[in-house]
């Protein structure tokens, strides 16, 4: 099940996948790039996560690794909120 943040991150990711006609069933550890999100989708992901959790992600944290999977984003969000 994961934390509330995990579910929030998963919702953001699933919405993006659906908007792009990609199968929305995705595990928390799945590599989002491999599933079909492009580098530009990563920008959408950053902005959407910021909006969903009402936070601004420091530029140094906006790295491919931090946005690789739902689990990675969840860890980032939890770090920023703690």
């Amino acid at each position, binding site marked *: 099940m994961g934390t509330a943040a995990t579910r929030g991150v998963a919702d953001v990711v699933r919405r993006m996948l659906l*908007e*792009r006609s990609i199968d929305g069933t995705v595990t928390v550890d799945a590599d989002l790039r491999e599933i079909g999100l*492009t*580098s*530009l*989708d*990563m*920008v*959408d992901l*950053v*902005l959407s996560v910021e909006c969903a959790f009402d936070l601004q992600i420091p*530029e140094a944290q*906006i*790295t*491919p690794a931090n946005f690789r999977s739902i689990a990675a984003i969840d860890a980032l969000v939890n770090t920023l909120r703690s």
Partner: protein
Amino acid sequence: MPLDPSAKRLLDMLATAGGMGDIATMTPQQMRDGFRRLAQAVDLKGVPVGKIEDGALPGPGGPLPYRIYRPQHPSAQPLPALVFFHGGGGVFGDIDTHDGLCRTLCAESGCAVISLDYRRAPEHKFPAAVEDSYAATLWVHDHAAELGLDARRIAVGGDSAGGGLAAVVCQMALTHHGPPLALQLLFCPVMDMRPGTASRHALAKGYFLDQATMDWMLQHYCAPDTDLDDPRLSPLRASQFSGLPPAHIHTAEFDPLRDEGEAYARALQQAGVAARHTCHAGMIHHFYAMAGAIPPARVALKAAASAMREALLGDASATGNREV
């Protein structure tokens, strides 16, 4: 002023993400897909308008899809209207990628906006987009009554390459004794294919619209032997500016196209045309269509739409280049 922090952040994010990819090996379809993805990320979403309808009008090469936005709060009846040509170098961009921009212009001006899906290169090279844009403008003017629009208050507008198209449509309306157009609304327009301006040199790389991308677009847009001085490609190189419709030209401080937009405003002013030029400090090319990521763009767009409304609602007999 320095680069706006939100614009800088977006540029940094795009750089980290690898941008749209390597332009040298990019196909037009990849560019179209990438641009649509970018719009999904940064476009202003959910701007309420009264009514949206998709239709098609007869174009020189077949039916031309368009989308008409009608405001919740009309500025006048019948409605003043803006015929809008999206940017994308004539190769990419579409009605959807500029939906947030058109919605905002409609909602904030109280005017109708008709966004045109003109033919794109390389499938349809220059001057297909020009011919479509002019034909659509004539059609909107001739069918204004049935569309509920005011034929005396038709503006044309566009951004980037679409801004160039709007300027060209005004020039064609003048030389072909076409309909009177009330305003040309140009956002960061492409005005010269052989510019050599300071902004093209100083901002050639790293400010969203790279020179490499512009070279790529031109290569797809035109046949190799095309005369780049043709005013339908480079409206700044036209021989006549007097008699053109009033203009609102919006440029961005950190846009390589900044100086050619400003030069066009100056050329119009010297020819006695009422041309207003606003250089948006700290902004980058395409800022007006990335208001989801660049908040100051919303303020700028609102002001641009208000100015359009005022221009269109002014005395119609004073704003047209020819009387109906």
